[in-house]
């Protein structure tokens, strides 16, 4: 199956692209599988595995979320937060 992938902020700097397409052989792939595919290609991505946010078709997802062909998977660094005081 083919999925579209989007990278933002520092993650886009690491992969040097904001979008990618990936062909997965496993018919029951998860968001975690897509992340594993890219972190083996770009080892610097793996550093983010703890605090990255994941999304499928614009909704928050987890590493276990199953994906289907045509889905858009996005890898989001933590948002800027800001401090209250």
């Amino acid at each position, binding site marked *: 199956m083919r999925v579209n992938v*989007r990278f*933002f*902020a*520092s993650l886009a*700097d690491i992969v040097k692209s904001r979008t990618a397409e990936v062909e997965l052989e496993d018919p029951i792939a998860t968001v975690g599988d897509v992340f594993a595919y890219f972190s083996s290609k770009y080892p610097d991505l793996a550093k983010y595995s703890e*605090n990255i*946010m994941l*999304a499928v078709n*614009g*909704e*928050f997802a987890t590493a276990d979320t199953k994906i289907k062909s045509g889905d858009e998977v*996005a890898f*989001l*660094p*933590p*948002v*800027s*937060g*800001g*401090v*209250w005081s």
Partner: protein
Amino acid sequence: MVLIIREPIDQKKIVERLRKPSDGAVVTFDGVVRDHAMGKPVCYLEYEAYEEMALKKMEQICADAREKWPISDISIVHRLGRLDIGETSVFIAVASPHRRPAFEACQYAIDTLKKIVPIWKKEYYTDGAIWIEGQS
């Protein structure tokens, strides 16, 4: 109303649009590009977003605020691209018949935006730039 724009935010227009005689209060939050971060002077900022998702999350914040507080209207506008020191990056306005719900909903909106809306800023200094991710 939620908007993501690349031009300067017209605060007056946003407030005029939601200000009605039936509401006794309009509370606003003006997020300003600060000239320093962690003791370092900042030259300018760049904001980027996962726009489709950011808009959905901003809509969700408005819907949740309306559910939690008796407010009449809420607007959230975020700007993207290069912003200079002192410019407004995000503007929130909340109207309600009485002031307390407007204050509380406005604070909820900015605090939640900073947690769940996929928008990031890159700070540019005289000697480089970094993405601000997580707490800062």
